[in-house]
């Protein structure tokens, strides 16, 4: 299996000075590489967005303005407005709009006002004098405690009803000492704040999928063996029980959930703890990121390539961007994640699409291990226009999976069950920090049906195990034009199996 291969690569760093495969350079804290950077750049080149000398832009949130300019909120608490970010050779103008805010991890714009999620509160920022500089900072909501190290706040964009959502990290990895730490909050257009979900640990971003459903990204740690996307619905519990002590201040949440038992499996525990929401998409730790952050849905109508309506997520530690897709099965969200682009220069804190449909990425690298060594950077991932051969999307079928591709797969490899190598695992659900991949199985691919156009294959497996992550290694596939997959892996989190039609 691929995991074995990676582990081996990490194990002893055998250095044959081989011309074509320079051995991976970093094994250790930030994890091995995918090793695909060199091929990725042909399809998705990374364009540095220069930052003027002397300026520090540790970007934490972006917002595309109606006029096409890009607003950038920073950890230093500034809002810059950038124009000219989409030029082929960008040299954007940086207009400093606001200063003095506290670590911006959420930014949206509506009716002439910025809505800023900063550590201390959600703030409406306006320029009433119309001189291009913010002069009014109104508190929209500070309905949560902020009193400990580690208490970061991440803000969403407006949903279709005009609500904003804020994901609140715990006081540390294990405890919730200040009000509503470990909760997701909803702030309505009339300024009311309501608790929406508990059980968060250390969110890295919050937003909606292409259907407008709310998700947040959770970090690996206690009660979370890997980073994961989780769907937030009113009253739901995301798995880390430290925040139970605040239910008395949030009657809208209903009764305190039954305390989860450590050392169980989420698939069984969710039957007992009815508010417990299973991970929608697990990102197998290290292979698929170590601290995933902000995400955005590709709504570029094809300007960014073949991944319309998919989520793009940054990773801080590994300085890379991944993809994810979600689908609702029997009322439960689940889906898959896929490698996309590695080799960015700094730890990625957030991503956003520009007006021209390029993906703006940026962040900083201080404080935690980060592969990219620039202390801060803005970079643009462009689509070169060339079609990569990729696993486009994996979806569940009553007896297996449907795998869609970006280019037609040739019949020989695409129809051969041996080309579809699968493995599964689950994680323990426990209060320890992180955890192993356990109960591994190797499903038998009983049959494959490659679509006539070669753009998808439906595979039937001997069985489907709920609560497992299905790991696909399709490295044996070739496209009709004899291309190898740019990334051979995908990881599908199976919560529910649809009934046969």
């Amino acid at each position, binding site marked *: 299996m691929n995991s074995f291969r990676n*582990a081996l690569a*990490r194990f*002893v*760093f055998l*250095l*044959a*000075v081989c*011309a*074509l495969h*320079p*051995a991976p*350079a*970093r*094994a*250790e*804290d*930030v994890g*091995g590489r995918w090793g695909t950077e*060199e091929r990725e750049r042909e399809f998705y080149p*990374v*364009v*540095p967005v*220069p930052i003027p000398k002397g300026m520090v832009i540790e970007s934490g949130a972006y917002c595309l303005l109606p006029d096409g300019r890009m607003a950038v909120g920073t*950890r230093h*608490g500034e809002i810059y407005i950038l124009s000219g970010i989409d030029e*082929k050779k960008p040299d954007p103008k940086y207009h400093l709009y606001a*200063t*003095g*805010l*506290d*670590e911006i991890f959420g930014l949206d714009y509506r009716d002439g006002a910025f809505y800023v999620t900063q*550590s*201390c*509160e959600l*703030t*409406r920022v306006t320029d009433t*004098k119309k001189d291009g500089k913010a002069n*009014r*900072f*109104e*508190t929209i909501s*500070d309905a949560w405690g*902020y*009193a*400990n190290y580690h208490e970061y706040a991440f803000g969403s964009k407006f949903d279709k009803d005009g609500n904003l959502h804020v994901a609140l990290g715990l006081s540390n990895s294990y405890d*919730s*000492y*200040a*009000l509503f730490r470990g909760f997701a909050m909803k702030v309505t257009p009339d300024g009311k704040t309501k608790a929406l979900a508990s059980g968060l640990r250390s969110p890295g971003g919050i937003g909606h999928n292409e259907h407008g459903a709310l998700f947040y990204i959770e970090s690996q740690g206690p009660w979370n063996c890997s980073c994961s996307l989780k769907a937030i619905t009113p009253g739901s519990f995301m798995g880390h029980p430290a925040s139970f002590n605040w239910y008395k*201040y949030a009657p809208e949440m209903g009764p305190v959930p039954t305390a989860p038992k450590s050392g169980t499996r989420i698939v069984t525990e969710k039957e007992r703890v009815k508010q417990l929401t299973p991970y929608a998409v697990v990102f197998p730790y*290290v292979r698929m990121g170590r601290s995933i952050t902000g995400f955005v849905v590709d709504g570029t109508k094809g300007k960014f390539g073949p991944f319309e309506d998919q989520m793009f997520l940054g990773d801080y530690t590994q300085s890379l961007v991944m993809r994810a897709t979600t689908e609702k099965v029997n009322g439960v969200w689940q889906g898959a994640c896929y490698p996309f682009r590695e*080799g960015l220069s700094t*730890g990625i804190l957030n991503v956003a699409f520009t007006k021209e449909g390029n993906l703006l990425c940026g962040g900083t*690298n*201080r*404080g*935690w291990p*980060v592969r990219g*060594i620039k*202390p801060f950077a803005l970079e643009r991932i462009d689509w070169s226009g060339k079609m990569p051969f990729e696993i486009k999307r994996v979806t569940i079928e009553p007896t297996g999976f449907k795998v869609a591709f970006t280019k037609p797969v040739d019949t020989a490899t695409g129809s051969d069950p041996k080309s579809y190598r699968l493995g599964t695992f689950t994680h323990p659900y426990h209060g320890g920090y992180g955890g192993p991949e356990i109960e591994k199985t190797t499903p038998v691919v009983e049959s494959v049906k490659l679509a006539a156009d070669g753009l998808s294959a439906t595979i039937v497996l001997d069985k489907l195990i709920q609560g497992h992550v299905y790991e696909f290694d399709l490295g044996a596939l070739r496209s009709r034009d004899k291309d190898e997959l740019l990334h051979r892996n995908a990881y599908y989190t199976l919560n529910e199996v649809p009934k046969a039609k």
Partner: protein
Amino acid sequence: MKSFGFALLSVALLTPVVSAAPVVPGFANKHPLTEPQVGQLLIGELRCTACHTSTTAPLERAAPDLADVGGRVAPEYLRKFLTSPSAAHAGATMPDLLAAEPADQRDKIAEALTHFLVAQAKGKFEHQPAGADEAAAGKALFHSIGCVTCHAPRGDDGKEIPRDGAVGLGHVPAKYSPGALSDFLFQPTRVRPSGRMPDMKLTPAEAKAVAGYLLGTSDAKGEALQPQEKLVALGREHFQRLNCAACHKLGDAPASKPVGTLEGADVMKGCLSDRPGKTPRFNLDASQRKAIRAALAKKPEPLTDKEKLAVTLVAFNCLGCHKRDDAGGVLEGTNEFFKSSEKELGDEGRIPPPLTLVGAKLQKVALKKVLFDGDGVRPYMSTRMPQYGEPNLRHLPDLFTTLDASGVKPVTFALPKSEGRTQQERDREKEMRAAGRELVGDQGLNCIACHSFNGKTPGKAGIELLTSTERVQPAWFYHFLRAPNAFRPRTVMPTAWPDGQAVQKKILGGDTDRQIEAIWYYLSLGTSAQDPAGVRAADTLLSVTDTTRTYRGRSSVAGYRGIAVGFPEKLNYAFNAETGTLSALWKGDFIRVNRGGQGSGGFNPAVKSVQLAQDVSFYALADEKTAWPLRPVVTKEAPANPDPLYPKNRGYQFKGYFMDDASVPTFMYLSGDVAIEDRSAAQTADKKLRLVRTLSFDAPKAQTLWFRALTGKVESESKQQFKTPELRLSIPQVPTALRPTAADPKASELLLKFEIPKGKSTQTLTYELLP
């Protein structure tokens, strides 16, 4: 180390004799090409294969894109250039296509072609006066970033100092307007895809400055050309007839059929004839003709990798800056223009690195980043690595790796695995990490004396050490560390393992291999590598200059929802927005901010401050006996907030702030149903600097609100003046209560009783820091 010596050809052999001959800058240097290879390169540079078929087309130099040439080049220059390219621009590679035309026709054809080209352009050429505004900056850039590797440097009089092989720029003022030239310099490969004039990573402002310098001052003379229909049509015919489309794609104009193969052609005739007839005239000099003839005399064979590499390095003049084996390197005449902001690094700091064994040195992805993505790791070097355009050099990384791979002996590092280690492995990992850190630090080999580490530069700003394992191949790293001099003679980089013997005997038992392996491992930890000894990160000092500054962040003097306000008068205060309390004052510098490591930007006063209470300031006390509602106490032992709704359950709600024209913030908050605006500003009166605080109330009904003005060792100086050892407070004429605090009976608290009328009212307090 295996030598990769090229067969070197003497420079003299190819020095152009006639200056009007086409100039290929790469020939001016000591290059590795044989005469037939020079000929082959010329065949590509002059695009012989645009008209002739050939089985061995070497690197073909793409011609400029003419789609908008009429918009970016002055029409009078176009006319002149078309009449005789080498007369307009000595050394041009474009052949004279009109030489064979009757003398009285040449101008007319050029005129018609000009009209045709201008008519094709979307933009319109505008004559603008050249200002030479930023000429000094342009001059400095021109002479430092690498332009003079291919172009002649200029004296103080602005005149070119002629040099063999330099592409003259004397024609530039006649050709371009300032706008057109800076557009071109900003993105040269957009209109000249060949990359022979590379992108020098100029910003628009820099491009403008260089353009200003190259153009000098000139009037905006010349008139806009209105293309005349007849001439446009005639120009179109000439464009077809002269087969311009063979080199220049323009619209759908087709190229003519090839005129015969190069191989086996009579090398004494046609373009190569000493007395050319009707063919395009390239103004080749004798040596160039000889080289092309030599190339054509050879049986055509595809180039070997080594030859292909050599041809590439000459065509793009890589060897103008870089040495590879015995070829190339900075010429004596241009050496002085290679500068560095880190002079102490010696030539390493200013001369681009050698390309000898570069394919064994750099990981391919790093090579590509440098070649195609504009990446660089030598910020101190003034010369920039040009960008030639990926399509032109796509083959180069593979060539380097293939040719150099066997150049250094393979090395095996046994690095700790990242997960599931045994105890023994964990111990070994710890030992390696510690050893690497010690070796890099100032108590070890002191690498940080010359290299940056994780963005910090305790000594000289040499190459960032944390890039090493991202860029460099491990075997090269190993051998280079052991003997830097073997790779870079006279390098300032010392060896810590002379003759393979470790200088540091105590670390890892003085084992050379283990030490180098440990350094690699430690550096591979990237930003998670703990800083080595000698590297320190300081807090960021924020100062106030001419306008008031407001800064938000956690602080020991103002709580997690703290806000610092600094005035140009060097008086500062902190406001705890969680409780609506002015909580600290200080004179002098503004704040220090923790933006290193995991620091979230929390602030502390830059100098010692006077700390005030941080409990809620306003409260509707039942009577003056009632205890003041204090902040819940949170301790290490009991870290959970026991009263999480405080102070919201005491009627307080922060509403934000707004700035006035002087950027002075006014805080807005509620106490019950009273809306309060709270503005403090520095004022100097009687030579005393004070903070004057205005509280504006807006109440829906008349009511009493108590204000806790001061705590600690409070003494009354008068009915309206109170002090602590550090602070004097003047208050309005309102009833007061000075009483012991609940927490500490030795301390007192000063309460003011505000009878707030319905509607709007104000009260003013003044704070004065005591010396």
